[in-house]
């Protein structure tokens, strides 16, 4: 590794800090972790080469203090900063400060972050670059005639939306031209009633959409490649919970068209490093529309790593060190299938209520093609201050069926004691027949389905037996905990029957 990346400060916490530290260590790069006062016991502090406290628990006083982070980097002799995701990762001003301090910024140029930072600005740039965005107007339309003409242009179905609106009022979906006039009047009058403003605008209706995104990698020498797509449509409260690649319903033609657009979008803003273009994909029309570009590593980057064999963190580091891409688009192959489940410390059956607390016992799954990117360990107390995601389970399979069955196997091996997690919820999702058919959109986790998914799986028979024994042991031998093989010498056990033993006469 080149001198600029002698020692990297990772300006993040949790599993992504652990992930970046691993990538650095594999390249022989030294690492510096930062931690808030609530994070002294965090796993990234244990795994890093060095670790320094940057302030109190609230992110605004620690992980978001760019000035402190740069100061620590310089005192610790770090030569570069990796921001992970979230926190300072998409802060162009911070990126500039890092570079001004003479440090390497492991991320895209501030200008690219800026260009993609505002949704409307990005939309205008993308339109100029020929990238498809959800068609429509963003300004109110004056007359019904003009509106009908625009609707015909962008194609039915369309949505009429109150310009001053929100909360579902003044919105009308129009399926056919013959319904337009009535819908126009209804929308305007409802808008006037609700918002005292009858201005209405028009947008293409994307029905049954999937959230599909394309991973791109660009070096500082003008080469940009894509690493195919991820389907991130399983969402709760606009947060992704299960991701997979390939997207089970995308045709090769659409996949490549979308990928081409993503590369084009990255080019248009002079992108360098790893980034992701998010699209809305209509399962009915097969059309797709650019939503935004995330100018950083994504949470779900591992599934792309699993099917392409390309280490994205290693790639970020090598690109930041100035290396040109060491492979071409033709070298990138999508092999097999990968699924990620984001393990949250929360209770899906209780409206995803957070469930921080001490992890009294932990056994992570292992074996073939099972990857756990964890930010916790047995004995760790999940703090109340940060995102509830504690780990990611990533499983690869030779095909989708294998990836699903392997994920279910791994989820059933996963033991987290002391806190509630979304682990059993994932098993219910992966066993859902619509999920198994690939037949799901961003509306997948509807209230009805949530109820079905969280009702299943409880085993009252086992709970009854366990509780009876626990009570009996508490009543008769309160303090006894028979640790494996500890109570007696293993030699003494020999010859003593234990458990049902069958012998052949």
């Amino acid at each position, binding site marked *: 590794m080149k001198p600029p990346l002698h020692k990297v400060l990772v300006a993040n916490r949790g599993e992504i800090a652990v992930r970046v530290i691993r990538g650095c260590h594999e390249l022989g790069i030294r690492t510096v972790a930062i931690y808030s006062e609530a994070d002294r016991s965090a796993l990234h502090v244990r795994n890093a080469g060095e670790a320094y406290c940057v302030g109190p628990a609230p992110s605004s006083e620690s992980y978001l203090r760019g000035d402190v982070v740069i100061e620590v980097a310089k005192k610790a002799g770090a030569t570069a900063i990796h921001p992970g995701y979230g926190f300072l990762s998409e802060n162009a001003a911070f990126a500039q400060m890092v570079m001004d301090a003479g440090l390497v910024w492991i991320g895209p140029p501030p200008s690219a972050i800026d260009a993609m930072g505002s949704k409307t600005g990005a939309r205008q740039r993308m339109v100029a670059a020929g990238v498809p965005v959800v068609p429509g107007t963003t300004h109110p339309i004056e007359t019904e005639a003009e509106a009908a003409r625009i609707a015909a242009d962008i194609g039915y179905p369309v949505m009429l939306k109150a310009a001053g609106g929100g909360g579902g009022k003044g919105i009308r979906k129009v399926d056919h031209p013959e319904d337009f006039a009535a819908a126009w009047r209804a929308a305007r009058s409802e808008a006037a009633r609700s918002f005292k403003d009858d201005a209405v605008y028009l947008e293409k209706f994307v029905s049954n959409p999937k959230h599909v995104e394309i991973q791109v990698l660009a070096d500082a020498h003008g080469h940009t490649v894509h690493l195919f797509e991820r389907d991130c449509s399983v969402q709760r409260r606009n947060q992704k919970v299960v991701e997979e690649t390939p997207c089970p319903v995308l045709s090769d033609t659409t996949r490549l068209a979308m990928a081409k657009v993503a590369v084009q979008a990255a080019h248009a803003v002079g992108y360098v490093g790893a980034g992701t273009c998010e699209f809305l994909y209509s399962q009915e029309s097969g059309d797709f529309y650019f939503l935004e570009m995330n100018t950083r590593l994504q949470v779900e980057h591992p599934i792309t790593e699993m099917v392409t064999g390309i280490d994205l963190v290693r790639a970020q580091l090598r690109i930041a060190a100035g290396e040109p891409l060491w492979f071409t688009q033709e070298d990138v192959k999508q092999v097999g299938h990968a699924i990620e489940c984001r393990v949250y410390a929360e209770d899906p059956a209780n409206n995803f209520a957070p469930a921080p607390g001490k992890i009294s016992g932990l056994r992570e799954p292992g074996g073939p093609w099972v990857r756990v990117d964890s930010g916790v360990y047995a004995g760790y107390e999940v703090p109340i201050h*940060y*995102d509830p995601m504690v780990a990611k389970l990533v499983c690869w399979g030779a095909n989708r069926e294998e990836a699903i069955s392997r994920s279910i196997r791994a989820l059933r091996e996963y033991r987290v004691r002391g806190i509630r997690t979304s682990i059993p919820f994932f098993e219910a999702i992966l066993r859902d027949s619509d999920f198994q058919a690939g037949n799901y959109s961003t509306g997948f986790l509807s209230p009805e389905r949530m109820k079905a998914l969280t009702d299943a799986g409880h085993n009252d028979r086992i*709970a*009854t037996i*366990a509780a009876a024994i626990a009570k009996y042991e508490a009543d008769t031998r309160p303090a006894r905990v*028979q*640790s494996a093989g500890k109570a007696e010498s293993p030699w003494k056990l020999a010859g003593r029957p234990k458990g049902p033993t069958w012998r052949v006469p």
Partner: protein
Amino acid sequence: MKYEITIGGTMRHVDIEPAGDGRYRVSWEGESHDVDLLRPTPEAYQMLIDGESWEAGCVAVPDGYLVDVMGLSTEVGVVDPRRKALRLAAGTATGMLATQMPGRVVRLLVQVGDPVKKGQPIIVVEAMKMENEMKSPIDGTVGEILVGEGQAVEAGTKLVRVEA
């Protein structure tokens, strides 16, 4: 030993007898199981139930256990009938609302003396950037409020006592 075990609305009379070497015989109406218990780590109850391998986590809660099987928690009431008789004779039912998670009290929605319905939100606790409404466990009257707005609370902290 006999226990009354309640899951959801269902109550069973369960009989448990030790069979030596960490083994038990657990029976109730129509079902009977040989259980070989091992606690490989303090929090794990690893059981061979008639040979079937199962694992559960049991955490003691008032009048029972929170039992985790494959990550799904079930509240299981366990009552020793002899003790139950004693307790029923003793006093009034009250509902104590405690928090299962550490966090910070954001808002109190009731005052002492307010009548409340079971399931009515009475206090809001924040953790991990999310507000969570906590509900009255029973119909009754707010008897005591044990925390203040803005106060940090740990898992298990008693918040509000509701009297029936």
